[in-house]
């Protein structure tokens, strides 16, 4: 099984690139066997992707680090979920060219992951705790589903605009029905809100636990001033408000408005991730704060001792 060790990012990225090329070719001409080749390449890519995440990404607990512990792993894992979703959509909507919108997102995430590099953002010891696992997986799934909702939203807008302007449907460029897209967008909104809620709550719990375990006096507090914490809070509040608003106000869950909401949610998510990237992860940050406080405390003690010694 040594050959599995040789699977690189190029293997699955190339498979997805071929799938994208095949999706583009659907616009221009028909070939009966293409769908099998397309799904075959996507499945092969997903297999290679899975093997890479397991073997190269150090998924196994107890190893040196956790795959979710870096932007690299985060992006690749999100891309994996979207690739899985692509195969599922290909089976559900075989005639639609939704892959044209989804595959670039997958390739973009892989590219982004490679660009960020494999340096760990999170402490590997923390990563082994159950709360960290829940936190990581909930946020990962939530992120992927928001991204998927974004694709559904964009496709909805394209399809709706085409129907509104009475543009003829090309037999080579078929999109799912508005009803399917609307329902999928709604589901993605609700599920991602739920997952991000779990992610946020578990994140707060981790933060709380870390601080109570740390050297800070006065017990556990949450670093609300931390940009990661407040931006996550805003993202979650947005999703929660959108979900409640949709539930209470019927027009907001009708047609194009749902599409706009999921697109806006994705933009919020991108903003949130940008903040996380900019300031570093909250827990990592709080750790360094703890370390800094400890250092200041010990320096203060030394200072007092020194002053006392000088007085004597």
């Amino acid at each position, binding site marked *: 099984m040594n050959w599995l060790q040789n699977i690189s990012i190029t293997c699955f990225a190339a498979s997805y690139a071929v799938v994208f090329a095949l999706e583009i070719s659907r616009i221009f001409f028909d070939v009966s066997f293409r769908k099998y080749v397309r799904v075959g390449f996507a499945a092969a890519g997903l297999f290679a992707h899975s093997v890479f995440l397991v073997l190269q990404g150090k998924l196994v607990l107890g190893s040196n680090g956790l795959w979710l512990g870096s932007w690299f792993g985060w992006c690749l894992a999100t891309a994996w979920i979207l690739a899985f979703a692509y195969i599922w959509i290909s089976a559900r909507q075989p005639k639609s060219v939704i892959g044209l919108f989804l595959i670039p997102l997958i390739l973009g995430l892989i590219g982004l992951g490679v660009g960020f590099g494999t340096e760990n953002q999170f402490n590997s010891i923390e990563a082994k705790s159950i709360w960290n696992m829940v936190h990581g997986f909930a946020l990962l799934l939530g992120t992927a589903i928001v991204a998927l909702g974004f694709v559904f939203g964009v496709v909805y807008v394209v*399809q709706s605009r085409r129907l509104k302007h*009475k543009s*003829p*449907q090309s*037999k080579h460029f078929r999109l799912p*029905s508005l*009803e399917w897209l609307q329902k999928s967008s709604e589901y993605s909104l609700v599920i991602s809100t739920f997952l991000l809620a779990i992610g946020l709550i578990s994140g707060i719990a981790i933060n709380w636990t870390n601080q109570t375990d740390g050297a800070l006096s006065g017990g556990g507090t949450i670093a609300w001033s931390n940009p990661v914490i407040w931006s996550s809070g805003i993202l979650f509040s947005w999703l929660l408000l959108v979900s409640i608003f949709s539930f209470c106000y019927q*027009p907001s869950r*009708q*047609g194009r408005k749902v599409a706009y909401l999921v697109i806006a949610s994705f933009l919020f998510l991108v903003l949130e991730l940008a903040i996380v990237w900019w300031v570093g992860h909250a827990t990592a940050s709080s750790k360094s704060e703890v370390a800094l406080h400890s250092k200041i405390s010990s320096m203060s003690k030394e200072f007092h001792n020194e002053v006392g010694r000088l007085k004597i």
Partner: protein
Amino acid sequence: MNLQVIGCSHHQSSVATREQLAFTEQQIKPFLDNYYSKFPNSEVVLLSTCNRTEFYTAANKPNSVPGKSELIEFIAEQRGIAATDINSEIFIHQDRQAVEHLFSVASSLDSMVVGEAQILSQVKQAYKLAVETNQTAALIHRVFQSAIRVARRISNETEIHTNRVSVPSVAIGVLAKQIFERLDNKKILILGAGEMAEETLRYAIQEGGKDFTIINRSIENAKQLAMKFDGRVGDWDELEKELATADLVISATGATKAVVNSDLFDRVEEIRKQKPIFILDLAVPRDFEHSISDRLNVYLYTLDDLQKECERNRQSRQSHYPKAQKIINHEADLFFNEIQRRSSGSTIAQLKRQADNAKQLELDRLMNRLEGVSEKQKSEIEQSFNRLVNKILHPPLKSLQTESPQVSGGLLEALKKLFQLGD
């Protein structure tokens, strides 16, 4: 094989003639029985649809198929009309032309709406009735089974059937499917109870539509339509309420001005809360004010919009016509080659048998005259006779196999005459 088709179609016959020659399913069986009573040595298939009535006749022996005038006389007599009334509007195709015509008809290349799917099932039905009447109709089997195969091939290899071309089918089969995933859980509202409304409703039901309400100024017509499709009749005064809950509206009233104006739709929208609605305004003049199409989540298509889509699809179908025609030519070649092979096969066998018999007679006579011939010598003589017969037969048989069906058909006839072979 002698095959011919005579009949009338929308290409060259008036509606009056087509009506006179149209047969219902119940009338076909007695007609076929009468035909076999009068022309027992031939086979017949009667294809009768809205746009054509065609009589395919075939026989193995020449002159066994009734001629055009003879058949027209017979048909006219069966229909109780004068032959002279229809004579000028009847076409006739024979042999290859007849086969190509049948292939075109079955593939719907000859239909009024090229690519329509119904004709193939009508051809199959005609074939089935013919076979039920005369189960030994071998020629009919061969030609109709080929036609069905050709129609399937054209359907698979071209896109002549893919795009819909009638307004109701485009509206429901194409556009409604782009908006709704399914129709069985949608509320369908029909305004008007005329032909267009009925035809569109029929498609909606075919696509799974179940819950529909019919509203019409004349409640009687609405009731009739509702009874026909097991639907509900709504009150015209409750139009706003019905519109507020509908997902799909099919509107084809005979009103002289818009029945749903902007103000009325404002009130409807208040209740709908921007729920998406697909409106098919198939009326002329339009039933829905044009400005309604600008509203959010309202997809309003008029007859003009749909006709444009139909025309595009028609052109798309036409673009596949040459490819389909090429398939028909190729299949007709294959069909006649096969017929030729079967036909020449029996003649060749007869010829070989005749030559073998002559050879054997001469060989026996020679052996009786010769004395003291060893077994080895006998064998040499027999082989020599065999080689002689083969060398004589080889050139004509090779010509039969290599020449085109038209030429080899003549050669076959010549061979039969020259060597006095039976059919």
